[in-house]
């Protein structure tokens, strides 16, 4: 069956419109879920239209679709919410490698191409390759298959520079004459270097900076799809790829702003690799508190703010947090969850975990809404968060995180910090909050500490 061109075009336009509407709806809590379905429907239309364009043999397409759908569906079903960041990284990498393969297949099947197509292929391979290998490294770091610490070595910038030069040279040589026998060699060198560039780009970045990296890689995979669209001269790829590219860039800049750092700084500084020398001395003494004493403090509180961080995800403590939150509410306290934009390992990580634990989303508050009224909060409970509540960011110009907007937990009347030990956050930055007059440390595994608090409440 072959569709007339006009039907194909209209089909692709409809798909593009559905993507646009879908993304728009994803931006509002009430319509988000429908938005995702609208966008999925757009994808279905794009796929069906492509299958009906005509002149295609279906055997291998169907094999690919079946294998891919099965893997995608199973993985999406079994993945735990706490593993969501690495899952997103993995899917993202697959999108990137698909674009790389589309570029390669195009070159393989018709090496005699215009300069424009050659350049488009190079971009699809470069961006797709970086998105793939970068995402794989991000996946490794997030799933703790490899160390989340920044990996730095002497001369790293020089090596990276050489890789970039190699990419440019092999790309130019390839594009000069794509039909020459040696062009294949140049192409393979170009592809290999692109993959290496992705690896080199992500290994120096620490785990705490992952929200930035993930949104940036997300943008890349969109741009790679865009480049693939220029190869096969297809508008729907260009439109949707560009939408994803733009959305990824915006999220990236939101994340950077939330850390008060430039993108260059996140990508190249190997932040937190060396402990900060100029962090300044911390005065005072940490005051440990037992679960029972913490209970008395909470029992008397009229308003409580929870500040979750990556530690909550690690301890899988989100359900225990919600349980305690409900008990506090029944006890007459006003309960809020204050979420820093870069808490956790991906944008919005904490929101997802708390939502999984059935915390109603109208209790989830943003940093800027709570900071001005923090001094009216009786108890601020910090659960596995560290750098995002570090007052040094506000007060100590020598601190590496100086200038980063933080949740002013220390302004609350009492701060209770749930933590394993006095150790520092990912960046190895000391946190004077632990030693403040109004701070109490509840040491131990966050989930266990919360459970014992819940038990205390239930005894009454």
């Amino acid at each position, binding site marked *: 069956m072959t569709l007339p061109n006009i039907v194909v075009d209209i089909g692709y336009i409809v798909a593009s419109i559905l993507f646009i509407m879908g993304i728009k709806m994803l931006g509002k809590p009430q319509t988000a879920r429908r938005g995702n379905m609208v966008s999925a429907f757009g994808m279905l239309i794009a796929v069906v239209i492509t299958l009906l364009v005509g002149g295609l043999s279906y055997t291998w397409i169907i094999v690919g679709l079946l294998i891919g759908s099965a893997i995608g569906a199973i993985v999406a079903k079994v993945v735990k919410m706490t593993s969501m960041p690495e899952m997103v990284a993995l899917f993202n990498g697959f999108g990137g490698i698909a674009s790389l393969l589309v570029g390669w297949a195009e070159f393989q099947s018709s090496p005699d191409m215009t300069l424009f197509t050659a350049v488009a292929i190079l971009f699809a391979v470069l961006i797709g390759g970086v998105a793939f290998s970068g995402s794989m490294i991000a996946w490794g770091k997030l799933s703790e298959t490899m160390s989340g610490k920044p990996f730095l070595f002497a001369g790293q910038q020089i090596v990276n520079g050489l890789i970039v030069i190699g990419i440019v040279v092999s790309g130019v040589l390839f594009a000069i004459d794509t039909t020459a026998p040696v062009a294949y060699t140049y192409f393979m060198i170009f592809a290999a270097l692109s993959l290496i560039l992705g690896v080199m780009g992500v290994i120096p970045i620490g785990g705490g900076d992952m929200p930035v990296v993930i949104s940036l890689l997300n943008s890349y995979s969109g741009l790679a799809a865009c480049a693939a669209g220029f190869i096969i001269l297809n508008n729907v790829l260009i439109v949707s790829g560009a939408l994803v590219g733009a959305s990824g860039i915006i999220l990236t800049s939101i994340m950077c702003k939330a850390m008060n750092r430039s993108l260059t700084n996140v990508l190249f500084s190997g932040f937190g690799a060396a402990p900060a020398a100029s962090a300044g001395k911390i005065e005072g003494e940490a005051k440990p508190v037992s679960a029972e004493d913490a209970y008395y403090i909470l029992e008397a509180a009229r308003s409580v703010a929870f500040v979750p961080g990556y530690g909550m995800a690690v301890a899988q403590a989100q359900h225990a947090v919600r349980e305690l939150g409900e008990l506090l509410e029944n006890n007459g306290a006003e309960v809020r969850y204050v979420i820093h934009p870069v808490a956790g390992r991906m944008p919005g990580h904490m929101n997802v975990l708390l939502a999984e634990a059935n915390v*109603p989303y109208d209790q989830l508050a943003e940093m800027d809404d709570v900071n001005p009224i923090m001094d009216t909060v009786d108890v601020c409970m910090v659960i596995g968060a560290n750098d995002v509540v570090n007052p040094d960011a506000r007060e100590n110009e020598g601190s590496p995180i100086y200038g980063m907007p933080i949740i002013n937990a220390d302004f609350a009347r009492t701060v209770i910090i749930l933590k394993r030990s006095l150790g520092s956050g990912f960046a190895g930055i000391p946190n004077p909050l632990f030693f403040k007059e109004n701070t109490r440390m509840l040491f131990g595994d966050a989930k266990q500490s919360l459970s014992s608090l819940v038990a205390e409440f239930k005894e009454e």
Partner: protein
Amino acid sequence: MSIGLLIFVFVLSIFLGIELISKVPSQLHTPLMSGSNAISGITIVGAIIAAGRGAGTVSTVLGTLAVVFATINVVGGYLVTNRMLGMFKQKEGGKS
């Protein structure tokens, strides 16, 4: 389709994307990211063409691999996003 027109579409889409996304509450950052990630699987269209046009064994193998990866991206991405969004609820009694 002329190349100039494609570039035109590209530039407009970038601007459209920026307009669409600039104001999203932070609680939706993850679903937005994973939802738009699924959209980047649109490269599946290119993959299908590469796998099906019968341009030699190597090409078909590359195309089929591309279809597999792009489909994982698409199917997995949409399902995971849907699962995540299903968890966002307002207070008990209210509907989501």
